[in-house]
């Protein structure tokens, strides 16, 4: 689970927060409601997750209320990988 979180964190830091210290992007930082990820960035993140973890994420699973924090996203990935 922590591996998944770190993979997501590294991706967001690399692509959307270049130069940021990993400590400032916590599992609970809101990503979309805060403006860190816009709609385009969210789509790219979904594509990245699907390719990295060999899973499929449906559009209805990326609603802003269940796909806003690294903790939620990692839980979704873990659930998909387990399925």
């Amino acid at each position, binding site marked *: 689970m922590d591996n998944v979180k770190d993979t997501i964190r590294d991706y967001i830091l690399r692509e*959307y*927060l*270049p*130069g*940021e*210290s990993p400590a*400032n*992007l916590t599992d609970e*930082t809101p990503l979309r409601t*805060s*403006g*860190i990820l*816009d*709609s*385009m960035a969210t*789509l790219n993140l979904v594509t990245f997750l699907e390719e990295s973890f060999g899973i499929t994420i449906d*559009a209805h699973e990326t609603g802003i209320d269940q796909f806003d924090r690294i903790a939620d996203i990692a839980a979704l990935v873990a659930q998909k990988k387990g399925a």
Partner: protein
Amino acid sequence: MNLCTYLERSAREHPDRIAVVDPSGRTWTYRELDETSSRVAGFLAANGVAPGDRVGAIAPKSAEVVATLFGIMKAGAAYVPADYTAPSTRNRTLLADCAVTAVFLDPSCADIVSEWPHERRPVVCWLPGSVETPAEGIAWADAVAAAPLAPSRLAAPEGLAYILYTSGSTGVPKGVKLTHRNATAFVDWCSDEFGPEPTDRFSSHAPFHFDLSVLDLYVSLKHGAALYLVSESLGKTPQDLAAFIATNRLTMWYSTPSILSLLAQFGGLDKLDCSSLRVVQFAGEVFPVKHLRSIVERWPQARFYNLYGPTETNVCTFARIPTPIPPDRTEPYPIGPVCPYCEGIVLDSFNGAEVPFGDEGLLHIAGASLFEGYWGRPTDELFFERDRRRWYSTGDVVREVVGEGYVYVGRRDRMVKRRGYRIELGEIERGLYQHERLREVAVIAVPDASAGVKILAYLTSQPGERPSIVELKVFCGRVLPSYMNPDVFVFLEALPRTSTNKVDYQGLVRLQQPRSAVEAAGASKS
């Protein structure tokens, strides 16, 4: 000609045809739309709104908003639409700038009028929304129900129809004044070029504060066709948007290339039947050929058009894209020749002389679609006279090609286009300067292979006071529209300065180049 005449004529000829389909799926006939807009006009007249006034409209898209825009124009006033998701302070500034006498708001935008530190508070009418209507002001449904069917007080063709606010070069939004004649010159040309029919089903993807909406609204309603309003959330969800096109058998599509690129990549178009689409228009930015090719391959039956023009001139050049697109083509398509209601000349950016055919220069436009000026600002420096015509510099560098019209080269100044929105980098700087721990701010835009344009903010702060990048992103999300949020934040000890002590933007661009080269080298090693 007045834009309302289109609706009134269609309502006489096709009273029971569907005029507007709401994002909720609810339909409005031409009779309903025409009558409701007359009641909106009656409400405004009864509340002291006079011909020539300005009236704001800030809300998500709905049939009520469409009726409201027509109602404002039927009252002889000009509508002033704005982004309901933008910060309240920005919206309040632009409503105050053009001194609106009334404003139609979504209840979620109550902050805009909760304080009004300006002269004369406007009449407030609350459009139906998802949150409760504030106590002060009148609910739209009540206003309309109580209002008489007012006779239209249509403005003359040279009267203002709407004011669209764009980013200003000083960072303050500028209100582009557009008349009925400006719009009808374009709409009537669309009739000739695209051949709309009452059986057509138009998309309305662009928000009403974006000038692409002029085609959707008025060409559709002029011809008795049905206008399908695309909600803001649906508009950004490619899979659902693609399904929306297929399910509703849309025939006319108009959006920025960004949206079409998203549809091509993420829309799942291979599984959908979109064969109803017969005309696809795009405007607002350069369409990467890779994505244009894939959308053309998915929709081979449609005619594709590239429309070009700043808000100040409306669409002023157009090009039909020859399809299919050869697999080896990478050059973006030309923006084409001028539309018949316009004239264009290419002038040297330095000495203002006409350039030899084929040389690069600034595109200048004259003609019926040319705006009247910016609200509250002098017009002296906006236009120049030549051959007894009034010319406006688009600020875009083009060159002319035999048989193809103009080829777009780029923008001259610091205005950039991102996802179809025009951004003046000064406005982002102004937003960032509101952060109390930032000392200096300079924003540049550089071309980027994947995003089209990348926005970099260079910052300085007091030692030990540096905000985190997460904090800056969140801060920008609060003070700026999302499309203005910078991609990269870089802290420097001091900003580079020119000899006259101005920020050296070219120096920042140069600073960025070796840095990305280092990044690229690092990436290839890892």
